[in-house]
């Protein structure tokens, strides 16, 4: 399968405020969140970024989605650079992370039309897509309820539907099943598998091993902003479970530092 996403030596450093320094229990004024990260994703596969809290998963995905700029390195999505062609990249991707909030005042129906307009989706296509996505995620009966009055799970499903209004070629989801009950989580994972079947490429980040085992074709384990290992799932789980593999890699890389 041809490669559709190439990440080359991405690096991101944040400056920490005094408050953040305390939280992170560090005296250094900067935090390297992602450090020289490289990987590739092939067209039509589900790629998982696995890592503990604070590993840099969300930061990596935000750079791919052009919300923040890498300090150095670059990433190419279908040939477009996140650094020099962010506008093209945004047309190509559907991005979902918990920091992207919906305006609580509006209804799912209104927001769907609003984002469809921003994504340049015409009226007829929009209505067809709306019917399809609202049915898939069970949003239809809440279509006219203000987002403020929706449950957490329903909000997440609405966010998800809005992120893929334009039927993007590449779907990038940060923690897609976080905070969802098993039923809702299954709707989401089934949907991702369905999208993969129809030829889309999907990048997810998670710290849930079972999710990776269930849906990913390939996965990379990030520890402290660097890629510890990146391989197909069958290779990663050849001799032991993914979880055991992770502990091995983790103690190895932490051991390296000491």
């Amino acid at each position, binding site marked *: 399968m041809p490669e559709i996403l190439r990440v080359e030596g991405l690096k991101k450093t944040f400056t920490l405020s005094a408050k953040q320094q305390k939280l992170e229990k560090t005296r250094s004024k900067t935090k390297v969140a992602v450090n020289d990260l490289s990987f590739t994703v092939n067209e039509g596969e589900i790629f998982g970024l696995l890592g503990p809290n604070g590993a840099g998963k969300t930061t990596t995905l935000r750079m791919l989605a052009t919300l923040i700029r890498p300090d150095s390195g670059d990433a190419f999505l279908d040939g477009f650079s996140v650094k020099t062609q962010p*506008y093209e990249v945004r047309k190509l991707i559907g991005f979902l992370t918990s920091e992207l909030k919906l305006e609580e005042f509006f209804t799912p129906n209104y927001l769907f039309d609003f984002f469809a307009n*921003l994504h340049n989706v015409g009226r007829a296509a929009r209505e067809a897509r709306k019917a399809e996505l609202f049915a898939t995620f069970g949003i239809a009966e809440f279509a006219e309820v203000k987002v403020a009055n929706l449950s957490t799970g329903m909000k997440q499903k609405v966010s998800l539907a809005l992120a893929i209004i334009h039927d993007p070629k590449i779907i990038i989801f940060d923690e897609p099943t976080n905070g969802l009950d098993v039923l809702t989580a299954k709707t989401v994972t089934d949907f991702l598998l369905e999208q993969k079947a129809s030829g889309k490429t999907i990048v997810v980040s998670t710290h849930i091993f079972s999710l990776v085992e269930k849906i990913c074709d390939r996965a990379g384990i990030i520890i402290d902003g660097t890629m510890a290992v990146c391989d197909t799932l069958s290779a990663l789980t050849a001799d032991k479970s993914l979880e055991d593999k992770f502990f091995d890699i983790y103690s190895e890389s932490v051991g390296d530092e000491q």
Partner: protein
Amino acid sequence: MNKNIITIMKKEFARFFGDARMVVTALILPGLMIYVVYSFMGVAMKDMFMPSDDHTPVLNAVNFPQSIAKIAPQYGFEVNAVTDTDEIRTQIGNKETDILIVFPEKFDESVESYDTKLSSVKPPNIEIYYNSVNPDSSEAYGLAVSMLDEYEASLSNKFDINRDVVSDLATNEDVMAFSIASLLPFLLTMLMFTGCMSLAPESIAGEKERGTIATILVTPIKRSELAIGKMLSLGVLAFLCGLSSVIGTFVSLPKMMMLDESGIDMNIYGAVDYVLIALIVLSTILMIIAVISIISAFSKTIKEAGTSVTPLMIVVMVVGISSMFGGGAATEITYYLIPLYNSVQAMSGVFSFNYSMTNVLVAIISNVVYACAGGFILTRMFNSEKVIFSR
């Protein structure tokens, strides 16, 4: 116009008009409040400072001389000859009667024999008692003083001033224009600013605070389109809010200024004047929106934005008040490049029929230029992750 800009503007309008609380607090309440407060103030001030129309001034006099008795009726006085001054003084203090004049005994004879050049004693003295808190008494006092002044002048009349002519050549229009020119620019500026202040922080700092702006930023919309869409819609909404206050002001201004029922006749201004005022107001609103939007974009929360904008409010008040002092609108063109001050001066000029078209146009154009520069800065800020994701 660009499709994305329209999409953003429509959303801002839907947000505003869909929220009954917002429409009431930002759009309806300011106009209504201004109407109620100004009307109330006007009525209260009328009670306080204006003498009643149908009151006959009462003059209590001790040793009332013949000479004055002859002219007093011409001034509309009802005269009471009295002897007990203490009782009358108490009555004046209690607002029961208007004034008391104590003439010296044999006033007419003393005046007759007094020679301004040769006499070595002081001239006869008249004492007038009144109550400054009672408008009727104050008016009677003023009337009595001018009556006595005129009598004194007539005793040694060598020449008159302004006998039987109306010497103030200001037309009614001028008088009205003068009072409007000194008050309205200040009012309009304040109303525009408060209108903008009630909208922009909510729309920009609010979206940042709630994390909804990031959701828009991952779509293929240009940052400039977002900035322009926001500024234009906020400008329109601020204009509507300002309009509500302006209507409230105009309806209540006659009462406030204690004019009679005919009120302020705005027909004294022509179409050109109104067009110029509208252009000045619109360009000023855009300029203010740009400034407040930038401040809001720097702020992390609506509250922080509100706090940062407040000092600006004081500047706006001071600049607004500048139209009330100084001799009319400034004439030098460089003044019309100073934001805000230019609008106040231009409005003041148009309202007082005394302006140079070049200066007014310079004011309008410079405001538009400042607004565009602001839009450019806002675009840059929307592009900056430090601004959008600051925490």
